C-alpha cells in the first residue's frame, strides 16, 4: 500500500477510513499536501497552500515565535507539541482545538479537492502536533466537496486560486466596498504573490483567502489570470508589475501662503469699503496690507496652521465645513489596547 499511485485522494481516504488505518496520506502535485489519519479518523492535514497551526498562531501574534519553536523542539520527537502548548499554559485547550480544526479543514480542501494525482499512504506515520482532534473522515470529504461548489458559485475560474494576484489599476466603478480581509489582500497583492503567499503572509486561512479573491475577481477588482496559450510555451512570462495609479511623490498642496485673492475680513468693517464695492482684481487689495484680523473664536484657524483665507467673506460668516479648522489628528482608540496585547503576548512567552 506504500507504493505511489495515481488515484483520487478522496476515494483512497474513504477506503483508509473504512479499514480504520493509521498513517499519512501524502498527495503530490500542486498544491499537494498530506492528511494524517489515526484509526480511520482525520487528526490533521497540511498543505503548502494553507497556513498550518504554527503559522496561524505566530503570525497573528497569539504565540511568540520563540514559544512555538520551544514547543517544537521539545515535543516533535514524541508527537505532543499541541499538548505541550496547553500544559505550559500558552494556549487554552479550546484555542488549540479550534485552531487545529480550522487548519485541518483548510488544508484538507487543498489536498483533496484535486481530482487525481500521485498518492502515497505511509502506514503508521503520525504528525508531530499529536492527536488534538478526531474528525469523521466522511465529514471532511463532504465538506471538501461543498467548499469546491461554494467557490464555483462565486465565479468558476480555478486559475484565480493559484495565479499571482494583481489588483486592477482602476476599479470598474466609482464606489467600492470591500471587507476587511479583501482590503488586506488588495494592499498586499503586488502582482507577484500567489494566494498561498498572501495567506501565509497574513496568517489567514488559505480557503478564506481564495474565497475572497474569487469574490474580488467577480467584483472586477483583481485581474483575471490569463489562460496560458500552449503555443507560447517558449516564452517565460515575467510577473506583471503592479501599475501605479497616481505618482507617489505628488507635490503637497501649498497652504497658508499669501492669499491670491483679496480678502475682506471680519472685524472693523467701518474701516473697509463694503465687500462688494469693487472688483477683486482692483489695484492694491485693501486687506492684504492690514494686520491679520483676530479670528472669530471657535473657528480653529489660529496659529501656524491657519488656512488660506477666503475671498469675499462677509463679516461674521462661517467657513465652509470642509475648511473649518484643520481637524485634530484622529485619536486612535485602540492604541492602548494593542500595546497591552503585545505586552501580554510577550509576558506569556516568558512563562
Amino acid at each position, binding site marked *: 500500500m506504500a507504493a505511489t499511485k495515481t488515484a483520487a485522494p478522496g476515494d483512497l481516504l474513504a477506503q483508509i477510513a473504512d479499514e480504520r488505518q493509521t498513517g499519512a496520506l501524502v498527495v503530490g502535485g500542486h498544491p499537494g499536501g498530506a492528511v494524517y489519519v489515526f484509526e480511520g479518523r482525520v487528526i490533521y492535514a497540511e498543505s503548502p497552500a494553507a497556513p498550518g497551526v504554527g503559522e496561524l498562531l505566530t503570525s497573528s501574534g497569539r504565540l511568540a515565535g520563540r514559544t512555538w519553536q520551544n514547543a517544537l523542539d521539545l515535543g516533535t520527537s514524541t508527537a505532543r507539541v499541541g499538548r505541550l502548548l496547553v500544559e505550559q499554559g500558552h494556549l487554552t485547550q*479550546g484555542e488549540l482545538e*479550534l*485552531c487545529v480544526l480550522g487548519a485541518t479543514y483548510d488544508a484538507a480542501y487543498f489536498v483533496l479537492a484535486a481530482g487525481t494525482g500521485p498518492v502515497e499512504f505511509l502506514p503508521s506515520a503520525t504528525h508531530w502536533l499529536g492527536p488534538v482532534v478526531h474528525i469523521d473522515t466522511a465529514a471532511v470529504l463532504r465538506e471538501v466537496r461543498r467548499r469546491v461548489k461554494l467557490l464555483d458559485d462565486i465565479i468558476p475560474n480555478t486559475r484565480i486560486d493559484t495565479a499571482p494576484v494583481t489588483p486592477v489599476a482602476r476599479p470598474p466603478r466609482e464606489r467600492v466596498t470591500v471587507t476587511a480581509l479583501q482590503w488586506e489582500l488588495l494592499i498586499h497583492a503586488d502582482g507577484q504573490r500567489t494566494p498561498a503567499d498572501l495567506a501565509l503572509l497574513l496568517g489567514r486561512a488559505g*480557503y*478564506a483567502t481564495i474565497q475572497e479573491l474569487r469574490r474580488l475577481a467577480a467584483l472586477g477588482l483583481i485581474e483575471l489570470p490569463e489562460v496560458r496559450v500552449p503555443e507560447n510555451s517558449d516564452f517565460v512570462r515575467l510577473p506583471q508589475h503592479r501599475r501605479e495609479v497616481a505618482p507617489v511623490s505628488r507635490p503637497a498642496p501649498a497652504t497658508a501662503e499669501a492669499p491670491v485673492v483679496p480678502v475682506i475680513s471680519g472685524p472693523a468693517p467701518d474701516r473697509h469699503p463694503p465687500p462688494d464695492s469693487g472688483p477683486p482684481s482692483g489695484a492694491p487689495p485693501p486687506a492684504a496690507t492690514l494686520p491679520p484680523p483676530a479670528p472669530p473664536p471657535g473657528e480653529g484657524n489660529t496659529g501656524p496652521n491657519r488656512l488660506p483665507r477666503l475671498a469675499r467673506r462677509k463679516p461674521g460668516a462661517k467657513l465652509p465645513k470642509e475648511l473649518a479648522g484643520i481637524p485634530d489628528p484622529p485619536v486612535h*482608540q485602540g492604541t492602548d489596547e494593542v500595546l497591552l496585547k503585545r505586552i501580554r503576548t510577550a509576558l506569556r512567552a516568558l512563562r
Partner: protein
Amino acid sequence: MPGVDHCLQEAMTIPGAVGASIVDYTTGFPVATTGAAPNADHEGAAAGTAEVVQAANSRSLFVSAIPHDLLEDLIITTAGGYHLLRVVQTEFDSRLVLYVWLDRVRGNLAVARRKMQRLADELVAS
C-alpha cells in the same frame, strides 16, 4: 481546561437549550455540534447561520464605524424558539460563532446570553 466539546456540553446546560454548535461563518461549516438542530440538519443550520452572520457583518446598518466595535451577538426569535449567535473572538484567524438553539417556553434570553458570553470567552481565554 475547557475544550470545544466541554464548551458545547456547558451550552446544553443553559435552561431550555435544545442544540448547540460552533460554526465557521466563512464557509458555513459546523466545526462541532451537539444536540438537535432545526430540521434535524446541523449542516443546513450552519450554512444558514453563516449567511446571517455575513449579512450582519456586511450591511452598513450593523457595521460600526468605530474601531474595535465588533459584532457580538445575534439573536433571532421565533414563536417557538430563540436562536442565539455569539461571535468567538480568537486572536488567530478563525471566524467562528457559537450557536445555541433554545426552547421558547423554557429558555430565558437574558440568562442564555450571559452564559454564552462566558462560554465563548472561556473557550479562548486562559
